């Protein structure tokens, strides 16, 4: 379907693509992964005929794309969905009007369009919302509408640039299910990029890109099988003692912590030695689980992210930084936040989870004083938010969902500006500026314009700007949305350090469930209500008591396996390349699940019981109530 040979592209002096050769067979779901600024979007735009390559051959659907005219010829056979939520849509048009517009644009005959529209709306579950204006849809629905608008002319190739960035896990899941179904039923080819590695695991093939080059291409399974390590997840009691022990015995292994879970990349050859060490010498632990290396491991290895200093979070302090009581916010007849009470202590990281449109941002905007509550009270730093006092604002830092610094200014100028706004001057300002640049690792780009930075660096800049004045309370609204795994990990280690060193209280919203493991406590919201508020471990424990253990099965076709298990009345969901389901004991797996799958011709290559993940908690809480 797509063939690239020796493709080059530069913007001024920056090289975006260098000698890229790729082949995407017809009917595949082909993924592009790689850090921000690796050239994924550029590659997609060249394939879509929107950008012209500087050198090299591009063949799409049998057409050599080397001129404006040849680019026009391929456009009728492809659909493109650019990066950003609903950017290809018209906010004031309704769902149906958007679809009609794209059908008209693509010259789809009226009768055919009507039939496809009904079908696509039904597949996406958007039929009840067909008259609603696009701007009033939730992020997940906008994304689905964007997809079906790109599909209304039944293209042979769809190009989707980070379609699930900023979308909650549930919507993400149903988005991929929909895409997989379309690819399979219509023999469509899809070229997709994503920052979520668990999603990439579901693609037929992935290409890992870095600095404009393709590092490796292959089926996710084949790529990860080739990796020389396995992943051990160890639940530890004392992270710091593990840190010292690892540094002494296994200093070269890549490792990171998610809460009390140590993730360790253990070279296959050394697994036996490591297991022996665990039995004899190692600090105490509560359990160990082995997993084959995954794409995240591949990604981090390519990025050469190695050991990171592990920071054990101290317990929160007694004093309360944020206290909210029965906060409610209505927009017209719509209640965005409904009677939410919440507190955050000094030195505590509280994660705010929920689907798009659950009211997370609204809650945060009320607490920062940006939005007056309809009813209820809240105190931030001991002062009511209703007064919107300058004294309180001096003590808080806020990072909005959207990058909201000045793109025309350099990194240093942005920081200096916000320093001065917060009353820092002279030597003190210089000191804080140096600290921020050094701490965030932005020294090397200090004099680049903020607008020119890749997303990961921009987010760190925004965090630094929010921190410059040394606030005691931080509000972070989806700070890592769209940031690649390495950047995300870096960002979170910064947050933990901050909590550890300075006792900053943080309220962080996120769609990445493994990030929630980094929090002291997790607050979950659904349709404006708070539905859970407990430490991650407690939530997982509750889930275990309610639903049983989590069995993860390695299968070749996870979507089909999920379908089979759901049809059998089992509670299954796709997690990475695996299918997970709740079971009561191992017997249920071997006695019921495995035969069921085998019956349908689905081979299970391995399985194990795992402690429930935050993702499982999220899915069961959000879906379970629905």
């Amino acid at each position: 379907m797509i063939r690239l040979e020796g493709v080059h592209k530069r913007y001024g002096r920056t090289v975006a693509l260098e000698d890229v050769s790729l082949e995407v067979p017809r009917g595949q779901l082909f993924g592009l992964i790689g850090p921000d600024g690796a050239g994924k979007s550029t590659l997609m735009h060249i394939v879509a005929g929107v950008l012209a390559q500087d050198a090299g051959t591009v063949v799409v659907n049998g057409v050599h794309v080397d001129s404006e005219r040849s680019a026009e010829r391929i456009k009728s056979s492809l659909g493109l969905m650019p990066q950003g939520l609903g950017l290809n849509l018209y906010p004031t048009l309704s769902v149906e009007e958007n679809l009609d517009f794209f059908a008209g644009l693509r010259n789809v005959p009226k009768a055919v369009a009507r039939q496809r529209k009904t079908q696509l709306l039904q597949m996406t579950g958007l039929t009840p919302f067909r008259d609603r204006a696009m701007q009033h849809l939730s992020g997940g629905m906008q994304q689905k509408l964007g997809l079906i608008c790109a599909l209304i002319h039944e293209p042979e190739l769809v190009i989707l640039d980070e379609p699930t960035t900023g979308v909650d896990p549930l919507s993400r899941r149903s988005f991929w299910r929909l895409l997989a179904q379309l690819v399979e039923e219509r023999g469509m080819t899809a070229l997709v990029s994503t920052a979520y590695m668990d999603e990439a695991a579901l693609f037929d093939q992935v290409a890992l890109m870095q600095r404009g080059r393709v590092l490796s291409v292959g089926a996710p399974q084949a790529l990860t099988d080739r990796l020389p390590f396995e992943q051990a997840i160890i639940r530890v009691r004392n992270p710091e003692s593990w840190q010292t022990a690892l540094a002494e015995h296994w200093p070269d292994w890549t490792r990171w912590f998610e809460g009390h879970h140590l993730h360790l990349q253990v070279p296959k050859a050394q697994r036996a030695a490591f297991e022996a060490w665990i039995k004899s010498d190692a600090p105490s632990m509560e359990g160990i689980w082995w997993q084959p290396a995954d794409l995240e491991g591949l990604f981090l290895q390519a990025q050469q992210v190695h050991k990171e200093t592990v920071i054990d979070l101290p317990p929160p302090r007694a004093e309360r930084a944020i206290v909210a009581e029965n906060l409610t916010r209505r927009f017209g007849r719509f209640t965005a936040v409904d009677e939410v009470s919440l507190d955050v202590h000094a030195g505590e990281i509280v994660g705010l989870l929920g689907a798009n449109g659950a009211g997370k941002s609204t809650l945060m905007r009320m607490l920062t004083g940006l939005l007056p509550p309809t009813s209820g009270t809240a105190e931030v730093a001991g002062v009511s938010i209703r007064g919107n006092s300058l004294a309180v604002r001096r003590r808080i830092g806020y990072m909005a969902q959207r990058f909201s610094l000045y793109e025309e200014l350099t990194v240093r100028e942005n920081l200096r500006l916000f320093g001065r706004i917060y009353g820092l001057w002279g030597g003190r300002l210089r000191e804080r500026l140096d600290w921020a640049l050094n701490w965030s690792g932005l020294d090397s780009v200090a004099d680049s314009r903020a607008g020119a930075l890749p997303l990961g660096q921009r987010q760190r800049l925004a965090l630094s700007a929010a921190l410059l004045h040394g606030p005691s309370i931080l509000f972070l609204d989806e700070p890592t949305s769209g940031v690649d795994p390495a950047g995300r990990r870096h960002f979170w280690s910064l947050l933990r350090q901050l909590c550890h060193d300075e006792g900053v209280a943080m309220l962080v919203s996120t769609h990445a469930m493994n990030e929630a493991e980094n929090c002291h406590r997790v607050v979950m919201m659904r349709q404006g209500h708070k539905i859970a508020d407990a430490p991650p471990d407690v939530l997982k424990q509750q889930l275990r008591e309610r639903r049983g253990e989590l069995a993860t099965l390695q299968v070749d076709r996870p979507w089909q396996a999920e379908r089979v298990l759901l049809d059998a009345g089992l509670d299954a969901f796709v997690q990475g390349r695996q299918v997970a389901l709740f079971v009561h004991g191992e017997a249920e797996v071997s006695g019921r699940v495995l035969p069921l799958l085998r019956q349908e011709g689905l081979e299970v290559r391995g399985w194990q019981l795992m402690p429930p993940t935050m993702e499982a908690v999220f899915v069961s809480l959000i879906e379970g109530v629905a």
Partner: protein
Amino acid sequence: MRAVWALFLKELRVLGRDPFLLVAVLWFFTAEIYVAGTGIRLELHQAPMAVVDEDHSLASRQWQAGFHEPWFRRLPPPPAMALALKLVETGRAMLAADIPPRFSERIERGQPASIQLFLDGANVTLGSLAASYAQMIHARFNEQLLYDRLHLSRDQAPPFPHVENRLRLLFNQANRDSWFMAASELFAVMTLIGMLLPAALAVREKERGTIEQLLVAPLTPTRIMLPKLLAVMLVMVAGFSLSLWLIMHGLLGVPVRGSPWLLYAMVALYAFSLSGLGLFVATITRNVGQVMLVVFMLMLPMLLLSGAWTPPESMPSWEQALMHLAPLYHFNIIGNGILFKGSDLALLWPNVLQLAAIGLGLFLLGAWRFRKMLA
């Protein structure tokens, strides 16, 4: 205060790094003024004229000689009057004259003679100008006939009663269009930029979401607003200086007869008056594109009510009353007064006072709306 200073520097940097705004401001303050000063003329220039001379006499040629360059341009004579009229109809000629046979014979005999003159009245300004020029030329021609009949020469005092016509223009003795046109254009440009810039600066913060970061900072709405207004004032004063000294004074020779300091003070006052309107525009729009639309919508009535293109005296009384509310009307009087007449405050104070009052009103409106938007 330091925060205000930091934000002020930020505004200037952001402006300086926006190639579009920068080029627009530079263009408006330089090339636009020069083009207006040299390119636009209010007098008749090379109006094409077709004459069908059916007399071919000394008198007929003398009459035609009155219509000369640079005001008129004679077209090759068409063979028949119908064709000459065709030229007017198609717009290739502005005037068409028919000098009938025996024109000179009738003059010789002392009988009244007539010439038929058609004028294109579609463009009212040019039509009426051409008509009045033709009347003057005609009057001179008749006067000449009188002299000839009395065998007098032109330099002798005429033996009949008459009032001698010796005009002296004040302030712009040579009656140069370029002075007035350039000044009017500059004031119009200042009006445009003075509304556009604060609105664009403010709405951009909304568009990019940067406003949220400012709102969570310990800044009052005044401290967010003030740096923008200061930056706009600086740009206005700088642009005005560039335009005045380089283009108008340097290239077009426009005099600056009054105090330059008073002029600068008035420019600052004018920038302040418009900024309120700009802020107001920013509160009702969502992006720079919408700002442009609204500003252009405001611009047209402002220009029409300014008195620069239309004499205030010839407007209906309700519009005259309205003009006193248009900032540009007062600024035109003040600016032209200081530039050309050398007026000072003692003379201009009624207009200065009115401009200040209007400006304050607009500013309060804009600031009130802006604060409400931020809250």
